[in-house]
């Protein structure tokens, strides 16, 4: 089955390279709108996309700076003492700023652009997009301040913010959902391209997750533990995963100027992901007093997750088949390839980790921290970068330079390798120390060299983000640089 396009493939721009080549975006729009209005809409969309990306860059720099401070504290625990700089307050600031500031805002910006382009329409409401951006930022700023002042709802992963602040985030999600769905509703294409399934779904489902997390009536004692398991897993996997996958389904065909390998496989992965993923949250609490059946169900479906993960990854890799040589010229493609491999490896690792026999060693160790960075960084963050580099120039007609891209890609890649490998080895040693029933402090001492390596990897990652910031500057405020060959082709196809 090497013919692609699948059942819905006939409807969409990424699926029709031949036709798209003939008609550029300007010509296409010109048939529907007066050209000045079309240009105005394009500019408004470019401004929205740029603003979301710029805000997310600021959050990435902030969140990873806090990450560096935290990493340093593992070797110098007396550094930065005092209530506002204590580890336990900065730790949730790092994770929440990454979560709500960086990844959420960047992915929503991408989702808007993809919705408009793949539906061959205009944004339903530019104003709502701006309101959403303000709300996302307001929530993240208020949350950061609250946590630093010691106002925490509990040390509950990704829902430490006091509930009124989480309501602001929910409002931002609501506005985004409304705007995205309404944009897709006014599409001029007959079909809804697969990317929008994932992005609309991600935003709508996350509204539900956020509500489930906020309502207090079923969250006492052990009841809250079960909700924590559900929430902390779904908040990542039903939010970032669908938005990043939706972006792959759009950007990859764009960059390669060829349709996705199998549209039907993408649809299949969509529904299986939807049904399997929400069930596996309790695998974060294996061996806890949660009911054993809940833990076992989570393990079973963690294995079932291999179906959408392998299906999705294979689809992306097969779309790239025979074209890997283009990686030499195209950093956007390289970022996306790393993102796809991060998705494949990180998710498969998640399945393996869920087995009781392995969880008995790895649970509660730094292996988990390695895993979360493999997925949030190796998959989600690289995916966002690939998407931004592939699509933002198409929106603004401004391009980053090859050197800037190289200075971003290589330190980020090497840094994340060092980070994940050191914590995976260190975490395994830590877990084996416990199994061998050595005095606990031995596991602290044995982790020291791996904490240092983590800091080395983290520093490279952090430094690379300055190159990213510089590149985003060039793609938004800078002058147009000479476009790279491959992006130019994609641009033309847009």
């Amino acid at each position, binding site marked *: 089955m090497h013919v692609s396009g699948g059942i819905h493939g006939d409807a969409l721009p990424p699926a029709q390279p031949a036709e798209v080549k003939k008609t550029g975006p300007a010509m296409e729009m010109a048939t529907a709108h007066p050209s000045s209005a079309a240009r105005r809409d394009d500019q408004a969309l470019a401004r929205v996309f740029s603003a979301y990306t710029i805000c997310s860059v600021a959050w990435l720099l902030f969140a990873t700076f806090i990450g560096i401070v935290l990493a340093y504290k593992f070797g110098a625990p007396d550094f930065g003492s005092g209530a506002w700089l204590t*580890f336990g307050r900065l730790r949730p600031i790092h994770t929440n700023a990454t979560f709500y500031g960086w990844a959420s805002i960047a992915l929503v910006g991408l989702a808007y652009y993809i919705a408009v382009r793949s539906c061959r329409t205009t944004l339903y409401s530019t104003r709502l997009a701006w309101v959403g951006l303000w709300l996302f930022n307001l929530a993240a700023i208020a949350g950061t301040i609250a946590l630093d002042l010691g106002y925490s709802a509990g040390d509950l992963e990704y829902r430490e913010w006091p509930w009124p602040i989480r309501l602001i985030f929910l409002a931002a999600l609501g506005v985004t959902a409304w705007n995205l*769905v309404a944009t897709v509703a006014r599409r001029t294409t007959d079909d809804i391209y697969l990317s929008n399934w994932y992005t609309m779904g991600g935003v709508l489902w996350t509204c539900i997750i956020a509500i489930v997390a906020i309502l207090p009536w079923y969250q006492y004692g*052990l009841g809250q533990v079960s909700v924590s398991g*559900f929430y902390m897993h779904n908040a990542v996997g039903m939010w970032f995963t669908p938005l990043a996958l939706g972006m792959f389904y759009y950007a990859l065909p764009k960059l390669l100027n060829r349709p996705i390998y199998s549209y039907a496989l993408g649809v299949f992965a969509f529904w299986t992901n939807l049904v399997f993923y929400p069930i596996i949250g309790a695998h974060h609490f294996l061996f806890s*007093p949660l009911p054993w059946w*809940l833990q076992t169900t989570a393990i079973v479906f963690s294995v079932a997750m291999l179906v959408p993960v392998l299906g999705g990854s294979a689809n992306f890799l097969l779309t790239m088949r025979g074209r890997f040589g283009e990686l030499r010229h195209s950093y956007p493609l390289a970022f996306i390839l790393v993102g796809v491999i991060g998705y494949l490896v990180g998710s498969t690792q998640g399945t393996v980790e869920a087995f009781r026999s392995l969880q008995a060693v790895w649970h509660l160790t730094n292996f988990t921290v390695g895993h979360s960075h493999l997925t949030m960084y190796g998959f989600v963050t690289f995916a966002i970068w690939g998407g931004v580099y592939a699509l933002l120039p198409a929106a603004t007609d401004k391009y980053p330079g090859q050197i800037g891209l190289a200075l971003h890609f290589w330190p980020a890649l090497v840094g994340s390798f060092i980070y994940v490998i050191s914590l995976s080895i260190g975490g395994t040693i830590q877990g084996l120390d416990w199994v061998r029933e050595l005095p*606990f402090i031995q596991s*602290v001492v044995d982790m020291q060299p791996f904490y240092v390596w983590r800091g080395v990897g983290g520093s490279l990652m952090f430094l690379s983000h300055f190159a990213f910031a510089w590149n985003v500057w060039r793609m938004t405020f800078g002058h147009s640089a000479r476009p790279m060959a491959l992006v130019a082709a994609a641009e033309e196809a847009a």
Partner: protein
Amino acid sequence: MNKLLLIAGGSTLVYGGIAILMGVLPGITLSQTPAGPGVKPLTAIEAEGRAVYVANGCSYCHTQQVRPLSQDKVFGRPSAPGDFAYQTPELLGSERTGPDLTNVGARQPSPVWQYIHLYNPRAVVPASIMPSFSWMFDVVDKAPAGVTPVPLPKAYAPAHGVVVPKREAQALLAYLLSLKQAPLPTAQAAAAPSGQPMAATGKPAHAPAVAAAPAGSAYDAAKGEQLFSANCSACHQATGEGVPEAFPPLKGNAAVNDADPTQHIRTVLYGLENVVVGGVKYESPMPEFGSMLSDDDIANIIDYERSSWGNHGKPVTAQQVAAERAKGK
């Protein structure tokens, strides 16, 4: 429009259903888990301390869940569903950068140790990477009446004045000392909590009180040192010199060097409080290790203490420990 409704609406409906099934319904059922026998709500100051614990993110490094795995038995008995009845927000945690604290009030009941450790963990545990919480303490010229200053080792004490805990530290201490597992009724202790299989490794976590130690195994120096490091060195230090005014030295300690080991054995088995060693009175309570360690382990620790740091006490055997255990407290 129909396609949009099917994709966005249909998937959201499916997801909403699963969210209720996997998130809300288990939440409702489990929220009604009754408190286990002996599990009590916190007092006002303990609850205040718990809020300090939450605000400063202690759970990012310390779990409060003992798994039914043999490596977790040092932290107490496996956690049971009834243990969490009064624990909202839940503090089970996901990382064990530092040790589990489920039962820390029993494992480390000394307020003096807790205060020194909070002020600067490295004052008592040199390899610790825990942050210092010195900002929860005041440095004053003279402690107010009725307040005992924290007896910090010289290297960690401020140059002038004495250190006294603020309200935050007092509340946190009260909370930490309240973290004691209620014993399970014996029938239940023998089985796993809520009928869970013991461990995937197939190695059952044995209940803490291991009375039936195999008799007559000889002193194992490596084992003794390891057990000492895990259970004793936080106070008495790896040097055996203790912490001046806080924890008595074992080096040159009369009871440790006494040819009659009775007092030494009974101290480890049953703990001690308000003891005078070398003319200095130590108020800090020592926990009892009889319920946590086997006779063999205790004999190993005692023999390690009797043969280290220039001590030359007569070694003891597990049978002697068993004999003292049989006599009762």
